[in-house]
């Protein structure tokens, strides 16, 4: 039997979770305060996933950038591929929170959405 230790990133508790496993089979999980911790390490053992947050250029707003994030975690290995896709888009004010920027980015079943309300400013182009 082998064991691996993880720091759960689901919430600020940051539990240290120990997993005992054989081959691909998880035998025991300990150290997590809640069941999300168990779900996290089980996912992490086989297919680690992360969400990312970044910005895209926006025209006509108070600031030159608008913040965006993914609606669902994507495989860790695809982070930079998704960043490349996000880099290709730009927005025009006004935008509102939740507005979709890219649907199903890279076919990963996650959308890129706006996370900041930005009004149209008269004197900006």
């Amino acid at each position: 039997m082998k064991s691996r230790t993880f720091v759960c990133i689901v919430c600020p508790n940051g539990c240290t979770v120990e997993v005992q496993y054989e081959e691909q089979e998880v035998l025991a999980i300990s150290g997590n305060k809640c069941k999300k911790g168990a779900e996290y390490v089980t996912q992490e053992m086989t297919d680690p996933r992360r969400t990312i947050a970044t910005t895209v250029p926006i025209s006509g707003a108070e600031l030159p950038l608008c913040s965006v994030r993914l609606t669902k975690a994507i495989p860790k290995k695809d982070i930079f591929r998704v960043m490349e896709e996000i880099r290709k888009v730009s927005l025009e004010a006004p935008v509102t929170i939740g507005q979709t920027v890219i649907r199903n980015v890279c076919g990963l079943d996650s959308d890129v959405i706006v996370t900041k309300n930005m009004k149209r400013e008269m004197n900006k182009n």
Partner: protein
Amino acid sequence: MEQRDVVIIGGGPAGLAAAVKLKEKEINDILIIERERQLGGILRQCIHDGFGLTRFGETLSGPEYSQRFIDEVETLGIDFITNATVIDLTGDKIVTVATRDGLLQVQAKTVILAMGCRERTRGALAIPGTRPSGIYNAGVAQSYINLFNTMVGKEVIIMGSGDIGLIMARRLTLEGAHVKAVFEVLPYPSGLPRNIEQCLHDYDIPLYLSHSVIEIKGNERIEGVRVAEVGTDLKPIPGTEKDFSCDTLILSVGLIPENELSLAAGAVLDERTKGAFVDENFQTNVPGIFAAGNVLHVHDLVDFVSLEAEALAEGAAQYLKRGYLEACDIPVETDAKIGHVIPQRISGKKNFRMSMRVRKPTGKCRIEVRQGEHLIKSVPLPKALPAEMIQFEVEADQILPNGKIEVSVYEK
């Protein structure tokens, strides 16, 4: 002079949460004063997610988190002015504000200090060497990259393992920079374990504990740093020096509550928190002046800032309705293992939430709240880290009418 029941200085998470809660308590005459162009405070540039798990039960980015409160402020019709800087506050609660339309003076019945904190700078660390460009505080780099579309550099060294530094290590990496290393002078990280994991480990960024930048090199632009291991006295150990080339140095070496206005009003500050001494209602020693959020003590999570400001609003509303609050004569003190505690004095007649941080990482332990021999509360913890605030409720029916309260940590 304009009269207001409540003036809130600062339209960040603390000020917004206090305003909404006060309005719910039927306090209607509120003015929020914000120096930036928009409400929201520092969350406007904190575009990463992970906010709101405690307060809203879901994970949000900073701008989304603050928008929830801004929406409520707008729906409830709470007055606010932006682009307006408070330049003076008196103990009589006269607030002087520099606005785009000239100077404004407001006589308030209650003032809520919600100015937040600022970053410790290179000057405070006295790092020897030249004074080239390319040295940024983590929060400054964050505003350049996330708000103003300005990349700060390509080859990056980060000094200090505070949460903003860790968040910026990831952000810079996503934007194509090479973050070479994070150096932390203490033998343990300052930031939260989950940020070490998802911001450093995920991107193979090394963290060197017990290391410090001892010299900065370069003339026009920074060209590199000299780093050394430090001993238990935090002084560099001769012979351990190493040179790293870089074009950017990010400092994430601590936050300091911004209390110039509090001092001007006569509030007494606690040497440990660098914020005001407060009672269980978050009232400072100046009657009718309250403080919550990072201006009071630096928080680990914005959720706790909101909750603290909401608790403050309960006390401030009661002060407005009655004209006074219960005397708080019981001091709260800590042992040497605890860095600070909030509140620093209580009435003993009201349940309250106690917040603290330990000075050093501690394994399994318990925190005891006592009055002499009398045990008020014992809180077992699986671990305690300086990066994390510890909070729990203390029930008034356990508190004796007299005698100072002492908070201690016992390792198992």
